[in-house]
């Protein structure tokens, strides 16, 4: 049951991912991408990470993609004037596919291990995923967390400067 569900979601994710790169119209690409993001959010839920799922939707679907759609609308881009040259497309695709084959081969070789932590579904259920993440962020990862706030501030300032009339 769960596996079936997984395959359905995975299929939707991959198909809409393909649509992202094949749709001529950027808005359709964006919609497909949102679909993919929802699928990934679903995966997160299945992976016992509801908080990640929620902020996946809020940040990616709710903020970043809205911005992208907004910009597409603002610039009123209907569709691409023309494709790249055939050989570019061919070469790019070949590269991508070859990379994929390599990745899959890498996975097939197996041997993916790592040191195990003590976290499991029960603990997440008991303490709440958000609380766990919050505790980690504000203790072990406090400095990076604070630095990301600076990063965001810089990004905001940069965006405002760039958006000014004359640069």
């Amino acid at each position, binding site marked *: 049951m769960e596996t079936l569900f997984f395959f359905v979601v995975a299929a939707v994710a991959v198909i809409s991912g393909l649509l992202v790169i094949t749709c001529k119209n950027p808005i359709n690409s964006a919609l497909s991408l949102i679909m993919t993001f929802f699928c990934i959010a679903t995966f997160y839920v299945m992976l016992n990470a*509801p908080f990640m799922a929620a902020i996946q939707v809020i940040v990616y679907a709710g903020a970043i993609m809205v*911005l992208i759609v907004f910009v597409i609308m603002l610039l009123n881009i209907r569709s691409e004037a023309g494709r790249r040259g055939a050989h570019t497309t061919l070469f790019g695709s070949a590269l991508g596919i070859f990379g994929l084959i390599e990745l899959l081969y890498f996975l097939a070789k197996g041997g993916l291990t790592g040191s195990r932590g003590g976290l499991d579904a029960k603990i997440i259920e008991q303490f709440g995923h*958000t609380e766990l993440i919050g505790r980690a962020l504000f203790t072990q990862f406090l400095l990076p967390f604070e630095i990301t706030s600076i990063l965001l501030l810089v990004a905001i300032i940069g965006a405002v400067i760039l958006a000014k009339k004359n640069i």
Partner: protein
Amino acid sequence: MGYEILGLPLIYYITMVAKTVAVFVFVLLTVAYATWAERKLIGHMQVRIGPKRVGPYGLLQPIADGLKLFFKEEIVPAQASRFAFLIAPLVALVPAFISFAVIPFGDTVTIAGYQVPLQIASVYDGTSMRVLDINVGVLYILAMASVGVYGIVLAGWASNSKYSLLGGLRSSAQMISYELAAGLAIILVFMSSETLSLHKIVAEQAGLFGWNIFRNPFMFAGGIIFFICSLAEINRTPFDLPEAETELVSGFCTEYSSMKYAMFFMAEYANMVTVCAVTTTLFLGGWHGPFPPVVNFVAKVYGLIFVCMWIRATYPRYRYDQLMRLGWKVFLPATLLLICGNAVWLLVFP
């Protein structure tokens, strides 16, 4: 009732379906009669009578409206992006409904020996004697709210019409702006109740002065700001710029007709109900009150809906720059200050 499917008792599935259907019907009916109530109320407020011809007191008016719209011609503009144009109304409507999945209508009730929580996405855990709902409920609501914008944006863009496009642009900018302030106002609730689970948030608010809004002055101000921001986020008057008739004809839905138009209409009212329900849950003590839990909850929601209509009848529309200024320069800093104030308050009166 001894049957089990996938390790869960059969009653679990039955009650789940029952709850879903009940909530769906409740929301649909509320939406339908909210249109009627609004017309009646505003009519009386403006010293008119409002609809009265279809049925007693015009009670059958919503059904007549629905039928009328249903039988109108479906028009898709020639230059429109067909796929996006068709999907937009659905995208607008769905998030408004599915937010209800996590809103608790009441505490548990006992059915056939089982404790059943009155919240769709939750179960009663017999071993730990507590209600388990998704522990990121509030984030879920925020997520759905942020997704709701796509319907309008898509509709505006897909119509390939200047009015629609402007309406869609305005709408998305407005929603992003007010989402921030609304989200920050919710943080006030997190700070007091220290959980993201809506069931726990409500369970904590027992008694009139247990309501979050009455906890301290900062929460009070935060509740009001949250409600106003929510109004802006769902494009209710006085923030209904995306469909400002005087400037943009009908905004993003200018090119829509028939059932698709009806869906936008429904989405708008469903959103209103959702927002009122969320406000009730977060700030007004949810199901707590003098009557049976569900009655309390519904009464509070209807009260807030009345307030929405009252506001619509009373206030003029904001200008666009005023709207943006209010969002970014008033509410955003105000909520940040409230958070700081609330933090201090919680430190002083733990």
